[in-house]
C-alpha cells in the first residue's frame, strides 16, 4: 500500500443561516450539492462516510447518527461509517481521518460531511447548549461555554501586550464580509463599514456583534478519494492532502499553555507539525482559510501560523495583507464571520474553498495558487487543527 495518496475532488454546501429545515433535510441538500460538483460519481460509488456534528445529539436528539445519515443520502458504506465530535474542527478532522483510511488502503472514496442544526424551536437552548462545549464541571459554571467571554479576554490581553487597536479588529470583519459578498451560500452578504462595526451592539467588550461569527444552521460535504480513483473520476487538476496536525495541550482554561491569553503556543506547535508533514512552510502557502470565529482570532492566527511577526497581526490585516493581492489572501469565501459557523461544517467549507482555489475555479480567485491551508480552533481554544493542500503531492 506504499505511496497511496489522498485527494479532495469535489464538494458542496447547502445554504447556511437560520434555516427552515431539520438537520437531516440539510444533510440531503449538502450531499446533492456535493455530487453535483462531480457528475461522474454516484452515491453507490462512495464506500465511506465520516459525519462531523457535535450538537446533533443535544439539539436533534439523535445519537449514532452516521447510519441515519448514510441511509437518507443513499450510501451503503463498507469501509467506514462513523460520526466524529471535535466541535469546530469536526470537518477538518474528518478529512484527516479520511486521508489516513485512504492512504492505508482501507478506503477508496469517502464522503466527509459536517454541520449543525443549532436553532431549536425555543431560542433559549441555542445559547444554553453552549454549556456543553467546555469542560463541564470546571469551566461550565464559570460561563466559559458561550465563547465571546474567553475571546474578549484574549482580545484585551493582545491589546495590552502588543498595542493592538480596536479598529484593527474591525478591519478583519470588514475584509471577511467583503469576501462573503459574492457567496450566496453564506449566512450574510453584507457590506460593512468601520463605523457600523465600532458602534454595533456590545457582546462582550471589546467584541461587538460584527466581531463575532453568528450561530448558523448548515451542512457541507466533500469527497476524499485515492489518487487512482480521483484520476478515474475527474479531469480537473488534482488537489492533494499533503499533511496536517491536530493538537490539544489543555482543556480547562486554568491550564492555558501560553504566557498570556494573546500567546498561542499550541497553535505554533500545530503549525510546526503540519508544515513538517506537508514539507512546506508559510512562505510557500498562497491562500488560507483561518478560524475567524472572532475578529481577534484571525489577528493571532496570521502571527502564530508564521505569516507575520508576533504582535503585528492587527497591522498586517489592516494594511490589506489578507485581501486579494496581499501576502496571504485569507477566508476568501467570507470565513466564519460572514458564512456563519455550523461547527462541523466549517472545516469542510474551508476545504472546498481551498480545493477550488487550487483548481483555479474559486469566485475570489487567488492567481496561480498551488498551495493552501485550513485552520480551526475548537471549544475554549483547546484544540488546533491544520490541513495543508497542494497541487503537488509530498515527495
Amino acid at each position, binding site marked *: 500500500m506504499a505511496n497511496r495518496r489522498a485527494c479532495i475532488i469535489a464538494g458542496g454546501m447547502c445554504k447556511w443561516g437560520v434555516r427552515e429545515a431539520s438537520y437531516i433535510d440539510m444533510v440531503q441538500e449538502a450531499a446533492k450539492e456535493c455530487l453535483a460538483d462531480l457528475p461522474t460519481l454516484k452515491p453507490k460509488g462512495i464506500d465511506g462516510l465520516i459525519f462531523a456534528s457535535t450538537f446533533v445529539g443535544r439539539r436533534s436528539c439523535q445519537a449514532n447518527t452516521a447510519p441515519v445519515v448514510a441511509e437518507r443520502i443513499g450510501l451503503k458504506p463498507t469501509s467506514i461509517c462513523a460520526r466524529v465530535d471535535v466541535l469546530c474542527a469536526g470537518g477538518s478532522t474528518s478529512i484527516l481521518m479520511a486521508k489516513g483510511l485512504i492512504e492505508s488502503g482501507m478506503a477508496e472514496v469517502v464522503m466527509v460531511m459536517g454541520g449543525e442544526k443549532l436553532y431549536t424551536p425555543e431560542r*433559549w437552548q441555542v445559547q444554553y447548549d453552549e*454549556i456543553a462545549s467546555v469542560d463541564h464541571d470546571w*469551566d461550565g459554571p*464559570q460561563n466559559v*461555554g458561550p465563547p*465571546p467571554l474567553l475571546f474578549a479576554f484574549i482580545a484585551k490581553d493582545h491589546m495590552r501586550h502588543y498595542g493592538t487597536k480596536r479598529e484593527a479588529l474591525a478591519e478583519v470583519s470588514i475584509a471577511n464580509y467583503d469576501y462573503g459578498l459574492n457567496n450566496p451560500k453564506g449566512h450574510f452578504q453584507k457590506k460593512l463599514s468601520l463605523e457600523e462595526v465600532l458602534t454595533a451592539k456590545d457582546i462582550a467588550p471589546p467584541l461587538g456583534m460584527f466581531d463575532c461569527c453568528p450561530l448558523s444552521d448548515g451542512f457541507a460535504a466533500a469527497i476524499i478519494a485515492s489518487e487512482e480513483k480521483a484520476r478515474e473520476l475527474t479531469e480537473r487538476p488534482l488537489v492533494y492532502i499533503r499533511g496536517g496536525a491536530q493538537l490539544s495541550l489543555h482543556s480547562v482554561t486554568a491550564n492555558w499553555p501560553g504566557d498570556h491569553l494573546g500567546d498561542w503556543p499550541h497553535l505554533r506547535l500545530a503549525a510546526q507539525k503540519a508544515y513538517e508533514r506537508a514539507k512546506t512552510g508559510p512562505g510557500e502557502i498562497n491562500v488560507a482559510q483561518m478560524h475567524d470565529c472572532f475578529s481577534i482570532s484571525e489577528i493571532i492566527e496570521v502571527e502564530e501560523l508564521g505569516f507575520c511577526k508576533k504582535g503585528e497581526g492587527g497591522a498586517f490585516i489592516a494594511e490589506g495583507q489578507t485581501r486579494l493581492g496581499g501576502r496571504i489572501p485569507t477566508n476568501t469565501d467570507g470565513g466564519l464571520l460572514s458564512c456563519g459557523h455550523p461547527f462541523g461544517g466549517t472545516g469542510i467549507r474551508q476545504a472546498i474553498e481551498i480545493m477550488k482555489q487550487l483548481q483555479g475555479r474559486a469566485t475570489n480567485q487567488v492567481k496561480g495558487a498551488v498551495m493552501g491551508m485550513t485552520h480551526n480552533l475548537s471549544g475554549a481554544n483547546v484544540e488546533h487543527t491544520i490541513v495543508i493542500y497542494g497541487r503537488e503531492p509530498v515527495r
Partner: protein
Amino acid sequence: MATKEIGIPFLEGRYSPTLDIWPIEAKEFNRIYKFYDHLREGRFTTTKCSECGYIAYPPRVICPECYSDQLEWIDLPKRGKVLEVVEKWGGLPLCFKPPLISAWIDLGKESPLKRLLSRIINCPPGTLKAGDEVQFVVFDVPSHPIEWGQERRIVDRVYFAFEPVKK
C-alpha cells in the same frame, strides 16, 4: 376542558444532567466529591500525587504524570490579583443574569495553580479593574434529586467563584 399542556409536562421536579450547568457532586456519582465537601468548609483544594509529587488541577482520581492512584488533597491559594476583567451583558445562558463579571486571575508565583478564569460575584458592575485583589467565595447552587437503590433524596450543592477584597 383540560388545561392545554405545553413543553414536556412530566419533567416537573425531575432532573436531567444535560440541562445542568453545575457538577453532579454527590458521592454516589462522583469520586472527587471531597472537593465539594472542602468547599463547604471554605477550602479550595486539589489533588497531589503521593508517589511523584505532581499537583494536578482539576483534581483527579489518578495522577496524570505517573498514573498512581495514591493521591492526597492540598489547599490552593484563596487570594489572587486580577489580570483582566470582562463584563458580559448579552448572550448569557438562562442560568445567569446580566451583567456577568469575569476575571482572569493571577494566583501568584508560589501557587501550583498559577491562573484561573472565574466569575466575580458580590461586585457592582464597572468597579473591578486589573490589579485589584479578589478572594475565593463559596455559594449555594440548585440541589437535585438522586435515586440510589430504593431511596430517592434531595442533595444540596455548592460552587465557588471570587469576589473583590474590601479595601
